[in-house]
């Protein structure tokens, strides 16, 4: 049986997850030219916020109620931490050499991980999420969609659509574009650019919380380290798509997800490459793809040339 449709669906679901997290990197970079390396941990904290909400609800509550509340609880936690990080860690360094906030972000990432590890109850081992795996949806004979995959494949496009409308149509969205293009001149228009920067961090964090709930439901559990590799992958997706471009984040995520899924399934069928296929090599192929794209298109798939930004 042809298993290509199944592999594409798996890749798409993985890519949607990457894309949702990548939004956080790309929005913050687009506005303050900062790579927020703590964003993976913001994602992780979204997961723990969702877990806390789940544990606070009476057992036996319907998943239809539990999951939306988990998303809200997760988003409250991730947005609170992200905006606090902006206010107390990054804002004082605005105008400092670029290396300073970058190192701060890496330090913050370690601090957040260790805080959860040390102080969240039983976080030293993985914590269980609600049971979500029921029957898969059968689309075709050779294409089944797991419930967790369906969940992300519905939510990620909805989030993107909402964000796209917000940025293009709303007054705050217009102010956000102006701030990204020319912050000083945005101030001359009466835009409170500090508020816009907080907004960028908050939107990225909320999306990361949605991704964390999707990820936890898929894996059945979350842990304090999960932000590291996923954050790195999402960052890769953001760069791949053209960092600073919100649609690029989604495109980069999907390309990366598809590349991983297809490499797992097909690389080992290429004669002479049996040892280089399978899940163990998926990350390698993902980063090889990044390198190749950046060699050909340094600005990323949908990125603008730097000259256009002047």
């Amino acid at each position, binding site marked *: 049986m042809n298993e290509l449709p199944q592999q594409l669906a798996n890749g798409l679901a993985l890519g949607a997850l990457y894309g949702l997290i990548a939004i956080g990197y790309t929005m913050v970079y687009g506005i303050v030219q900062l790579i927020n390396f703590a964003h993976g941990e913001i994602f992780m904290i979204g997961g723990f916020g969702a877990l806390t909400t789940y544990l606070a609800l009476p057992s036996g509550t319907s998943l239809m109620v539990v999951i939306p509340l988990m998303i809200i609880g997760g988003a409250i936690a991730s947005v609170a931490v992200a905006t606090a990080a902006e206010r107390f860690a990054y804002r004082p360094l605005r105008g400092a050499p670029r290396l300073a906030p970058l190192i701060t972000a890496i330090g913050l990432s370690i601090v957040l991980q260790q805080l959860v590890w040390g102080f969240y109850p039983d976080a030293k081992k993985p914590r269980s999420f609600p049971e979500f795996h029921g029957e898969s949806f059968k689309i075709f004979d050779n294409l089944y969609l797991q419930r967790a995959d369906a969940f992300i494949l519905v939510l990620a496009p909805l989030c993107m659509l909402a964000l796209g409308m917000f940025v293009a149509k709303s*007054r705050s969205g*217009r*102010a956000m*574009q*102006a701030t990204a*293009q*020319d912050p*000083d*001149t*945005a*101030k*001359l*228009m*009466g*835009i*409170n*650019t500090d508020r816009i920067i907080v907004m960028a961090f908050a939107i990225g964090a909320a999306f990361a919380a949605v991704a964390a709930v999707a990820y936890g439901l898929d894996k059945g559990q979350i842990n304090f380290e999960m932000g590291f590799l996923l954050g790195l992958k999402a960052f890769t997706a953001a760069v791949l798509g053209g960092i600073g471009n919100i649609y690029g984040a989604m495109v980069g995520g999907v390309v990366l997800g598809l590349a991983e899924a297809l490499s797992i399934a097909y690389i080992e069928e290429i004669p002479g490459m049996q040892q280089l296929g399978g899940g163990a090599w998926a990350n390698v192929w993902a980063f090889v793809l990044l390198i190749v794209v950046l060699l050909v298109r340094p600005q990323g798939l949908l990125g*603008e040339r730097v000259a*256009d*930004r*002047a």
Partner: protein
Amino acid sequence: MTALLEVEDLRVAYGKIEAVKGISFSVEAGQVVTLIGTNGAGKTTTLRTLSGLLKPSGGRILFDGKPLNGIPAHKIVALGLAHSPEGRHIFPRLTIAENLQLGAFLRTDKAGIEKDVQRAYDLFPILGERRKQAAGTLSGGEQQMLAMGRALMSQPKLLMLDEPSMGLSPIMMQKIMETIVELKAAGTTILLVEQNAQAALSLADQGHVMEVGKIVLSGTGPDLLHDESVRKAYLGED
């Protein structure tokens, strides 16, 4: 009557280097006042401080009777001080219409904004023709028109123009200067910074000559235009 803008002993420093070393001048409502001088004289620094992008290290700024010291830039425009910055700084990836809308960011009177957008198109017909086009695709002169139109969208009590003729062709420069005369005739109060001293002085009520952070000479536009030292230093005569 007190002046619309009063600057007293204003000082601005970048780190340890003082770029503006204690200047005083004022702008009366309805006047066009110009600051002229060579590169590095501190003209742009002065405007950026007035609009709140830079913090003064000393002195006092009174606008419409209120002190501006310590007020952030995004709140100063609400008081009626608009700044069309040096180098135009239009938002390149937004359309012309969107750029103009941003100029009215703090206004809520939709009908009034619509009227003023139309007024900008009347003032600069080329902007109206290209309203849906990304502003980055405009020529330098057209971008300057957009920057001026955008600054006017906030209905300012005082319009600050920084080097509006910079890098423009003689014809475009002529057009921009004519527009400033038009705005003046309509009663707009303007603080104009220019390197083109001839053009600036011939339309200004008051002029101040800046050199390395200080005002070295002040007078009416015609007086300065006929002043021998000004003619030698800035109008290229010997």
